[in-house]
Structures are given as structure tokens and as C-alpha cells.
């Protein structure tokens, strides 16, 4: 029975580790300026925890194999050094790894979430609602019209509750369900929730942020590769949560300018 346990555990350990190592299922390619740091942090953690995983499972397997009661009157033996080596290993090895990961990781995190956005950022409003994302560009006047929740009307596509009749800054706002952005340009999103909690997640951009009703949350990043990527909601928001998506289209600046002009004409 002990040998069976050891063999089964070893197979489980080897197979599951191999699937990680071989990257059978893995992150999509990163297209974000801050992405490489996150990927590096992830790899560092993957390696150190992978080693810890393999060593502990194999140690368990080995000991179970070796120390079955063979009814030979053998005496039990305490682990050499008692509990001290266990405490030492945990504090020193795990502790050192934790220290390293925290020091580096907190810088990576601060770089994304605790630094001010680039002053040259393209500013885009994002509203999350049950169950879609809508994006708003400020238009030629460079200003966003005020949001009036009582004027929000999905049937007329007035998702942001704008009042163009009385508010001239709202008249040229461009509201679309697709986030088009120029490649290589810093982007500053302002996240607002219309009804309940939502979240903004683009795996390729290595970025994620909750929308919170009542809060206005900034999120900034720079996309480094053109292409079309999905934005999905990751905060349970109701029955349509699984179908709450939009697309971010990263394109060269001239193409983006044309896109914006086309969308403005359709408003």
C-alpha cells in the first residue's frame, strides 16, 4: 500500500509538473509595456514554487515508501535535528524567497497601480453595466460631457446619460462599444460602474481592475502590439456575466485617427 501511494503520488507530481513546464496551457503573448515585469515575476514564482512542490511531494512519496511497518521490530527514529531543521528551512528558504518576491513584486505593482499616468495619455471613459462595456472618447473639444444617470437610455444608445440638448461639451462625445487605441500611446482609462461591480480584464495586456459603483477608478497602460483582443468581465455581475465582453483594437495612430473620425460621424 505504501509503495502504491509513493508511485501514484510520483506519477501525479511528474505529470502535473510536466504540463506546467511544457506550457501546454499558458498565458497568451504579452502586448503590454508593463507586461514583461509581470511575466518575469510569474516565472520566478513558478520556478521556486515548482521546486518546493516537487521536493515536498517526492519527499512524502519517498518517506511513505521507505518507512512502512515491515513488522521487523525496527525502532522508530526521530527526524535528525528534530523540528529545528524544519523551522530553519521554512524561515530561511521560504522567508528569503518571500522577501525577494515582495521587494521586486511591490515595485512591479506600484509601477502599474501607484504611478501617475503619462501626461500625454489618451483619455477614454469606460462604463461597465449589466452586461456590456461602453467607451467614450472626448471628441474634438477634448472635454467629456457630464453624466446624468436619470438620462441613461439604452434604446437610444445614450449609455452615458449625456444631455446634448443642454450640455455642449456632450455633443461631440463619441460613444462606442469597442475600445480602439493607438499602439504605443499611453492610455488612461477612467472606470465607472452604472449598476453593480464589474471588472475589466485583458489577459494580453496583463491588466485587470474592478469597477465599483460610486467610485471613479483610473487605469493606465500602453499597448505594444497591434491586434484585436478581448476584454472580459471578471467580477460577478448577474446573469449575463459570462457574455459581458468587448474588444480592444490596437492599431497604428493614423488608422486610429481615421477610426475615430468614422465613429464621430455616426454619433
Amino acid at each position, binding site marked *: 500500500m505504501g509503495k502504491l501511494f509513493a508511485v501514484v503520488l510520483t506519477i501525479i507530481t511528474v505529470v502535473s509538473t510536466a504540463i506546467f513546464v511544457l506550457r501546454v496551457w499558458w498565458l497568451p503573448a504579452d502586448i503590454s509595456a508593463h507586461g514583461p515585469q509581470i511575466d518575469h515575476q510569474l516565472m520566478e514564482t513558478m520556478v521556486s514554487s515548482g521546486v518546493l512542490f516537487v521536493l515536498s511531494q517526492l519527499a512524502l512519496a519517498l518517506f511513505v515508501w521507505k518507512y512502512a511497518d515491515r513488522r521487523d521490530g525496527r525502532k522508530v527514529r526521530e527526524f535528525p535535528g528534530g523540528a529545528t531543521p524544519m523551522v530553519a528551512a521554512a524561515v530561511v528558504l521560504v522567508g528569503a524567497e518571500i522577501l525577494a518576491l515582495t521587494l521586486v513584486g511591490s515595485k512591479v505593482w506600484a509601477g502599474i497601480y501607484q504611478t501617475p499616468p503619462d501626461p500625454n495619455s489618451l483619455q477614454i471613459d469606460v462604463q461597465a*453595466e*449589466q*452586461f*456590456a*462595456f461602453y467607451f467614450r472618447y472626448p471628441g474634438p473639444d477634448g472635454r467629456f460631457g457630464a453624466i446624468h444617470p436619470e438620462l441613461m437610455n*439604452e*434604446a*437610444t*444608445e445614450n*449609455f452615458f446619460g449625456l*444631455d*446634448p*440638448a443642454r450640455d455642449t461639451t456632450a455633443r461631440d462625445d463619441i460613444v*462606442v*462599444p*469597442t475600445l480602439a487605441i493607438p499602439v504605443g500611446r499611453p492610455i488612461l482609462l477612467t472606470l465607472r460602474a452604472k449598476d453593480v461591480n464589474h471588472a475589466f480584464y485583458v489577459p494580453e495586456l496583463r491588466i485587470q481592475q474592478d469597477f465599483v459603483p460610486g467610485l471613479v477608478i483610473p487605469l493606465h497602460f500602453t499597448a505594444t502590439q497591434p491586434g484585436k483582443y478581448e476584454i472580459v468581465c471578471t467580477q460577478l455581475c*448577474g*446573469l*449575463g456575466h459570462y*457574455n*459581458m*465582453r*468587448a*474588444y480592444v483594437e490596437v492599431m497604428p495612430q493614423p488608422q486610429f485617427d481615421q477610426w475615430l473620425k468614422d465613429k464621430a460621424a*455616426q*454619433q
Partner: protein
Amino acid sequence: MRTHSVSVLVTALVTGALARPAMVVPAAPAGAAGTISGKVTYTGTPPKMKPIDMAKEPNCVTQHAAAPVLTENVVTGPGNTLRWVVVYVSAGDQGSAPATETVRLDQKGCQYIPHVLVVQPNQPLDIYNNDPHSHNIHPLARVNPEWNRSQPAGAPPIHTKWELPEFIPVKCNVHPWMHGWHMVLTTSHYAVTGEDGAFTLSGLPPGKYTVTAWQEQFGTQSQDVTITGGETKTANFVFKATPY
């Protein structure tokens, strides 16, 4: 004329004899039925109908690749006509038989077809999902009980009915741009205008009627029309449109 009156009388007697006690159909009074017809138009500048970008449901984007869909809150036609206006007898109706044929609503290409439908109280309404993905129809009723129901792809139609008169806006919980209306009218004398803005209310016995036109953005307008015999009376409606 006299033959016509006799046949009407006979018809009325037979109908009256065959009518079940629960469904009292008042016998049609002697005399021909009149008609009220007209056109619904607007003055001023209506809001632009915007193309609906269904990007979050790629399947529906594909379905409309050839001809993009526009919003339907103010749909106009040539000659400043208004579509989707419900014109109906709001007062003076001398008795409408309950309608029994089933009205059908389709969810196709992430749209409600038709955009505005009319039913009478307890008239059967079947709601179909013809798209290869889920919809969740949510009639925002305030007088009738409010409900919503998911229909995954391939789900059977919803068999339902409305019991009380109400103008019910309908939305899809999953697709924010999907909007429509269920108009629950007690009268069987109604019409929904097409692109030509025209309507005809026929089979009206002589009497004083109030005809109301409802447009979802511009509200309602009413006119009084009197029918004396089998004539056709004209009643046109003109709504004031503003761009916002």
C-alpha cells in the same frame, strides 16, 4: 341596402345565438361600419438614428454584416412619416371581441421583431429565440407582473400573455441595445404604422371615438372622431420632433 341590413341582422341573430354566455358579443347595430384612416408625420428635425454596434455579440455582427441595424426609437419614412406609431381607439369603443390568435415575437440578429407589438389582454404571445446564443427577455412592466426569462440557444418558445392594459417597454438583459414595446390594448381597433406612416381603423360602428397615436419618444396625441354611417374619416397626426 335592405338586403345588406337583413343579412347583417341575420348574422347578428345567429352570432348572438351561438355566443357563449361568458363572451357576450354585443350585436352589431344596424348600419354599416365606418373607417378612420390617416397618416402620422412629424415636423422639425428628428434625432438621427444611430447604427447599433453589436460588437459584444460577434454572431450578430455577422448577421448584419450586409446592412447595419439602426436604433428604432424614431424611425422615419419618405415624406416625414413616422413608423412604429400605434394608433388606436382609446375611448368610445363599443366592444371588441377578445383576440385569440397568437402573436409572435422573434429575437433574431439581436433585435426584437417586431419592434412594437400589440396584444389584447390574455391574447397568447409566443416569444422565440432564433439566435444561436442566449437571450433574456425582460419586460419592464409596472402594472402587470414584471418578469424576465432566459432562452438559451434552441430553447422552446415562451408562451405567455399580458392580463392588464399597459404600455410595456421590453429590454434584453444580455444585449443592452435590444429594445421593444409590448402594447396591451383593450380595443381591437388599432394599427401600427409602417414606413408610409399610414394607418386604417376599420369596422367601427357609428359613434363618437377618441383616437390616440402613441410614439415611444414623442408621447401621445389624441383626436375625437365621430362616425355616423359607413364613411371613412381622416385623422392625421403630426408630432413635433427635436434632434435631442
